[in-house]
């Protein structure tokens, strides 16, 4: 791969998670789940979450889409397992800033960890939606939970 932008987009972490997605499974005992769909390109994922006392005890996904969307879902699940809802929302914000070019991956590599691999997406505006689909779906899952909690 000679194109430096392409190399930044398809980093080894992304190719690896696309090929061998982690936490790629249904979760029969999930406390909630939600399907995320990008009607423009047909990417479709279901995110399963087991929430207990504001902690994401387990998170997994199923579905199909491009390498960017699948790797993003896979990395997201790895990163969010064991995190609090607040931490997940904070990371969602960071991820969004990263893929839209508002945060420089190279300056925050330590805090971003594996998420830093998605820094190259910002050079490909058409692919931001691919990278964000799983995250938006995750946010929807968590928000429906808090709604449910408040009505109970």
């Amino acid at each position, binding site marked *: *791969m000679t*194109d430096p*932008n*392409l190399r930044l*987009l*398809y980093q080894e972490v992304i*190719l690896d998670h696309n090929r061998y997605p982690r936490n790629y499974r249904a979760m029969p005992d999930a406390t909630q789940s939600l399907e995320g769909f990008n009607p*423009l*390109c*047909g*990417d*479709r994922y279901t995110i399963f979450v087991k929430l207990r006392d504001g902690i994401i005890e387990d998170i997994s996904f199923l579905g*199909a*889409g*491009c*390498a*960017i969307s*699948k790797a993003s879902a896979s990395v997201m699940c790895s990163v969010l397992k064991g995190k609090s809802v607040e931490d997940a929302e904070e990371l969602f914000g960071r991820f969004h800033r990263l893929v839209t070019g508002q945060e420089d991956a190279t300056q925050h590599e330590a805090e971003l960890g594996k998420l830093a691999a998605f820094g190259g997406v910002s050079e*490909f505006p*058409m*692919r931001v939606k*691919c990278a964000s689909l799983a995250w938006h779906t995750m946010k929807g899952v968590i928000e429906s939970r808090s709604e449910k909690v408040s009505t109970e």
Partner: protein
Amino acid sequence: MTVETGTRARRTAASFDVERIRKDFPILKRKVHGKPLVYLDNAATTQKPASVLDAIQSYYREENSNIHRGVHALSELATQHYEEARTKIQQFIHAARRQEIVFVRGTTEAINLVASSYGRDHVGRGDEVVVTALEHHSNIVPWQMLCESVGASLRVVPITNSGEVVLEDFRRLLSERVKMVAVAHVSNALGTVNPIREMVAEAHRFSIPVLVDGAQAIAHLPVDVQDLECDFYAFSGHKMYGPTGIGVLYGKERMLETMRPYQGGGDMIKSVTWEKTTYNDLPYKFEAGTPNIAGVIGFGAAVDYLGHLDHGALDAHERLILYEATEMLQNVPGVRIIGTAREKSGVLSFVVEGVHPHDVGTILDREGIAVRTGHHCAQPVMDRFGIPATARASFALYNTQHEVEQLGKALRKVQEVFG
């Protein structure tokens, strides 16, 4: 296409000077990501020759005015050019009369016009509308909407694994209940050329009118609406080297005559009083409001451009490019062509094993190659083949064998990235 026809096409295509043609299209000189543009997204929209761009410019610079109403010189000039374009298009599709050419925004609006106007008066509860399984959403949704509102049902003719309409099933679906057949001339997702003449003849045995979605055919196949005997033929200017936002509904005069206006407003009336409005004659009855004058004039210039080419050589050239591209793709391991009908035109949909079409599209783009990826507004076609999307290379008269080779090289790069 067989090898034999490929050889024959190669000989005829040699008389087509593609390098000279390319000089007519200013955009083809540009680079994308530092690489020469290889534009293979012609089924989405084609590029425009300088003569079309000049015609639009010249209308705005020299004669901008409204048509059909002014007595002043500019209005007269603009009206003349607008109406000349109608005549050019009439001749281009071999329509019997110029009043059978109705200007609309594009194919989608043309189909909606027929579904709304003809459909609402002739399709009722318990009736049926027949479409095929390879239609674009724009030839599905207007009929679905119509059927839903009047209590009719939409029947779908299946396609084979190669992407051909099953004619036996088509015949079986025809009956007195069917009030409209709507079918694509060429499939935008698969490239299949449908046997329109046969289908029209079958439908007419039951006195069923046929609407043909010609969006993908008009720039690539000779279209003779009288020979096809179709009742309606819809197409867009921008897919035949003309501007966006302008298209045509061709309708047989006796069909259009009986149809109610689609939209009300200026230009479509003869007289208006509080008691009664008399509608204008054809085609103005269907052209309410100030039309896309610049678009029509640009459209006319596109028809002029196509009209001046040697059609035998052009057809051979396009066949050759499709043939070469098909052969090339067949030789890239892990690539599968979706849509292998015997008669195809201009479209090559494919999937790369283990790589999602979007990733294919991004990597090709970095090589300067523009292809479309996704469901191509034909989700039922994707479902039929059990895939979420394809990458689609679609060709036009300015594409070259060198560009096909570039596509092949770039696809090997895709496989390199995804190992």
